[in-house]
């Protein structure tokens, strides 16, 4: 019999086979794992509407600096401006929304969120890890937005 040395698939159903399977997958994992794991995250936070434009900029700059100090890579940031909230938070009906998209080591996130909790100017915040579909989606969204802005500028000019 040629190719008799190839393991039959049902070998991996046996307990010994399962052990080999886990060992093999773990070896592959070690080989392919990058040295410093960087995930892509997205953070949205809401600042109180009582701040002036300069104070908003200052607060955003503070969080940006916090991230930059910890060796994260800012990919995109967006200011949505003063928006109406769907329900009152701390008796306020509006808030300044701001979005960060960045690549960071997972250990940074916890301390970053503590920074939000300590700051009284922040009404709400949310950080999510982006999977590959989300990254692609955000990229295409940015491209579309850039195209729309370019169109508008072209129309005005």
């Amino acid at each position: 019999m040629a190719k008799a040395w190839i393991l039959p698939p049902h070998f991996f159903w046996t307990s010994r086979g399962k052990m080999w399977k886990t060992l093999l997958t773990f070896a592959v994992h070690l080989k392919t794992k990058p040295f410093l794991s960087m995930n892509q995250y997205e953070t949205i936070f809401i600042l109180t509407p009582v701040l002036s434009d300069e104070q908003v900029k200052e607060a955003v700059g503070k969080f940006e600096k916090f991230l930059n100090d910890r060796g994260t890579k800012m990919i995109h940031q967006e200011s949505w401006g003063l928006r109406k909230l769907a329900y009152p938070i701390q008796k306020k009906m509006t808030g300044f929304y701001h979005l960060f998209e960045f690549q960071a080591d997972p250990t940074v996130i916890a301390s970053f969120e503590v920074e939000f909790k300590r700051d009284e100017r922040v009404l709400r915040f949310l950080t999510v890890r982006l999977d590959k579909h989300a990254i692609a989606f955000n990229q295409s969204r940015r491209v579309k937005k850039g195209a729309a802005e370019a169109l508008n500028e072209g129309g005005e000019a």
Partner: protein
Amino acid sequence: MISNSFAAIPTQEETRKKFCRFKKARIKHIDYKDADFLLKFVNEQGKLLPRRITGTSLKFQRKISVSVKRARHLALMPYVADGLK
């Protein structure tokens, strides 16, 4: 030659089969920042609509439920509402 011999069974024209809009449009990611889109999966009171009404597949219903909850947390959508839509 295809005839409907069972009167109780409706023909294809009578019953339009529900479909998952995400599978059909090949959408892979549901954005929680887009509140207007998520409004389609929520009733007037701001509650999530069941799968049997929207026809969404289980995979995407889970994603919708997560993104609606995120949108609620960020005050992009209400937790409770009256006469939404």
